[in-house]
């Protein structure tokens, strides 16, 4: 569960990125967050990942109170969620297999579990034969699916996708969102930031619109 209560964020240079934002995303939801660039989407994501801390208000994600959390608890918190970025962020000198396995290794998973789980997940995202390939040899869509596999491998309660289709062909974009949709059906909460309205229309889901640091519409209210 994600809960923002009266969250404001002002950067040291004076930019007010978020102004008194309150929102609640329940377990099992699938939420699109839309808004033009500079609206505050990135800041929102950074706060969800505990890269930035709110200037005021409270942010609770997966039961972790991010404002009060100690720095050394951050790794444990981040393991409770999966992240997918626009630029994939795969480790370039590790194979597809090792990239996905890395997310398990940081959790102290046994190598037996890793050997069982990683091929299963790669199969799930449709890349069963790419385990030994390096990320640079894959297409954008394939790289994003590896990133998705990495986000999924620890079976997190929540997946945050920051413009996951931004660098991918439109047809493949649909596939990625569809994959997220399928994952959501198994009970995982999905928060996806995007500015591709076509995609949002194709999947009839809750849409939160942010503009100028404020939530200007939330389809949840209108229901």
């Amino acid at each position, binding site marked *: 569960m994600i809960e923002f209560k009266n969250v404001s964020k002002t950067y040291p240079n004076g930019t007010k990125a978020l102004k008194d934002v309150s929102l609640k995303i329940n377990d099992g939801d699938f939420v699109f967050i839309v808004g033009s660039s500079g609206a505050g989407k990135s800041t929102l994501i950074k706060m969800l*990942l505990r*890269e930035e801390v709110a200037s005021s208000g409270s942010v609770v994600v997966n039961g972790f109170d991010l404002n009060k959390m100690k720095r*050394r608890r951050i*790794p*444990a*918190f*981040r*393991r409770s969620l999966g*992240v997918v*970025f626009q630029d994939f*962020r*795969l*480790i*370039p*000198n590790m194979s597809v297999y090792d990239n996905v396995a*890395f*997310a398990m*290794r*940081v*959790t*102290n998973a*046994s*190598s037996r579990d890793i050997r069982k789980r990683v091929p299963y997940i790669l199969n799930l995202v449709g890349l069963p034969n790419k385990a030994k390939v390096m990320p640079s040899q894959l297409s954008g869509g394939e790289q994003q699916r590896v990133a998705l596999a*990495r986000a999924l491998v620890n079976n997190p309660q929540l997946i945050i996708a920051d413009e996951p289709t931004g660098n991918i062909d439109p047809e493949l974009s649909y596939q990625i969102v569809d994959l997220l949709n399928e994952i959501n059906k198994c009970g995982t909460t999905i928060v996806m930031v995007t500015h591709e309205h076509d995609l949002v229309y194709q999947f009839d889901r809750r849409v939160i619109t942010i503009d100028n640091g404020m939530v200007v519409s939330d389809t949840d209210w209108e229901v």
Partner: protein
Amino acid sequence: MKSGNFAYLVKEGARNVWVNRLMSLASVGVLIACMLLMGGAMLISYNINEAVGYVENQNEVVVFLDENLTDEQMKSIGTQIENKGNISKSTFVSKDDALYDMIEEMGESQDIMDGLLTENPLLDSYEISVSDLSILSDTVSKIENIDGVYKVVSPTEAASTLTSIRKIVNIAGSAIIIILFVVSIVIIANTIKITIFNRRKEVSIMKYVGATDWFIKFPFIIEGIIIGLLSSAIAYGMLWLGYQYLMENLLTHNSSWLQGVAESFVSFDQIALSVAIGFFGSGVGIGAIGSSIFVSKYLKV
């Protein structure tokens, strides 16, 4: 940390040396260059010091005694000289011994002495060496004041030259070594910084996936240690071979002066252990500490 993880992290460190082999090569090269410079400078200044010390110990002061002294008087002068301090060695040479030595030294032409001498024209003397050459003239004037001392012959000028050479060698040597040390640290720090800067994205990705600082740092430290070990082993080998080669060439050189100088050099065996400890210690230490410090910079995501 679980043992399986430990093995994985060590393996990761070793793998990264190879995966980033170009940067590894650059780091190894820089480390070797710095170690050779430092090691070379230390060896040179150590040897010059040793050589000057050797020449210093060759100093000889001859104290001639008045004629017609009794044995007791001569003995008492001997004790008086030793009581002046700064004397490392003192031997009594009777005038008969002195004459005998002189004739010996003449070799084949000693016959000419037979006709010339009816009596021994030499004086009884003490041959002494001082321990601290820099206060030689002071010691000499003290001895000159002893009753029954006829004359003191001493290498005062050579002594002051040697003393000042040693001072210059010490100061210049230390200054060069300190400068090289600072330069080395700056170059090495920069090399490590660049290596890790190239991989800052990798570090931040690991943080996003939920890796602890330690989990990210550890392979970097292993990598630093491997590069440090590799560099110090190569630098040690090069210094050893280079020194051996130089010594061999000097010892068999045509110039007897160079041969003499080389003989006063310390052999590599004598310093092998301290060079090894210095190289391996600094290599591993710099590798591990440097990596650890600079990775930490990119861990604050």
